[in-house]
């Protein structure tokens, strides 16, 4: 997961196409195949859909950040992107534990589907 995050940062850190291509090429020539497959899925926008409801994410993020809901909404209005807002608000201390991208997706994120009660 750390490597994928580093790839994302590298793509985000430049406005030059050449640098972005170089970062992608370095990632895909060294990433384990299972990670690389998920990386392609995410980078081309084919992420798993509706595992968790967005309103739940907002509520939990506000709780984790220890702020009222209205302050979460003010923050979201300034940032303009829900995922980024959550990233900026929740405590940074307990960061990644070194699990790979494939482990994150297959063992932690996808199983959330089973928690949804329709």
């Amino acid at each position: 997961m750390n490597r994928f995050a580093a790839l994302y940062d590298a793509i985000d850190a430049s406005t030059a196409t050449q640098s972005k291509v170089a970062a992608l090429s370095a990632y895909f020539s060294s990433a384990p195949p299972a990670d690389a497959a998920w990386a392609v899925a995410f980078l081309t926008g084919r992420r798993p859909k509706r595992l968790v409801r967005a309103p739940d994410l907002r509520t939990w993020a506000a709780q984790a950040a220890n702020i009222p809901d209205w302050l979460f909404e003010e923050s979201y209005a300034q940032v303009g992107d829900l995922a980024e807002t959550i990233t900026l608000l929740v405590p940074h201390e307990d960061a990644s534990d070194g699990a790979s991208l494939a482990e994150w997706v297959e063992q932690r994120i996808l199983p959330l589907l089973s928690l949804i009660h329709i």
Partner: protein
Amino acid sequence: MLLRLTDRGLWCEPADVYIDPWAPVARAVITHAHADHLRWGHGHYLVSDSGMGVSCQRLGSYASRVESVPYGRVTTVNGVHFSLHPAGHILGSAQIRVEYRGEVWVVSGDYKTDADSTCAPWEPVRCHTFITECTFGLPIYRWPSQQQVFAEINAWWRENADAGRASMLYGYALGKAQRLLSGLDQSIGPILTHGAVETMTALYRHAGVRMPHTTYATVDQRDPAWSRAIVVAPPSADGSTWVRRFGKSAAAFASGWMQVRGARRRRGVDRGFTLSDHVDWPQLQSAIAATGAERVWATHGFTGPVVRWLREQGYDADAVETRFEGERDDTAVDETSTDVSGAGASPNDTSSADVPLPTAADPGV
């Protein structure tokens, strides 16, 4: 009320003294030398000793009206006691303490409470009423450590130098530029400056602040060694003809606004480094608590959310509508930085100081 907001600025009636007024007054006490706080046309200016050099530079022909005092020394006007205390924002920046008949108010000006070797550190000043900026008054603004940001900047510079391109690093000519300079690793390559930055940096050196060796990149110069250089320049230089002499280059902008990706993308530079001379959300909370104030007035920035939050925490809080601007991600930051030839602006040019620009921090949008 010991201090009141008038159409000229924050006014202390019993002393007839204004703090950072935006229209001409007889007597002004100044928090710091940025253009939205230090303006032309007053009869008398009181600034901190360490702010004397930069204030006089900014005031040009008005410099003869400036008087300075050391931090902490009390100046009494009609029974009102004024003193200046370090605000940690830029060289010479001060919070203004005002005491009258046992009541104490403190005007923060702009301030930050984290590390910065280029100015005296912020000191909490106990008061009944604290008037605070809230430029970055939302919980999304939490600054990384200065050490981490400098490491990122130096790594970016090294990568550019090794690839044969100059590193254009943009930050305000007064304050931000010198803080950036203080964190650069001189072993990577030469450090060049824009004229507006060089002028202010010389004043920092004169005030005893340690700065690395810098070379002022004049208009008609070029040098092959510049491909390894970092160039510290005001944001207004981005995209100007002045920049072209450095050949192939990468650009970065240093500001608190760079915390948010959208702001980085709108800026259109390769990199954004989160480095601010203002308090972030956690600093704002701890600073207010440290003053012991019961009443808080929020000036420029996210006043709406900050006032609501403080009221929920039990404070007597209100927003006051000043003309201070905080940290803009706009190019025309102060008039010393808009002159891309590097010669410095005319002291009579008040255009950028007087234009009411919408701030990126307007919580109403």
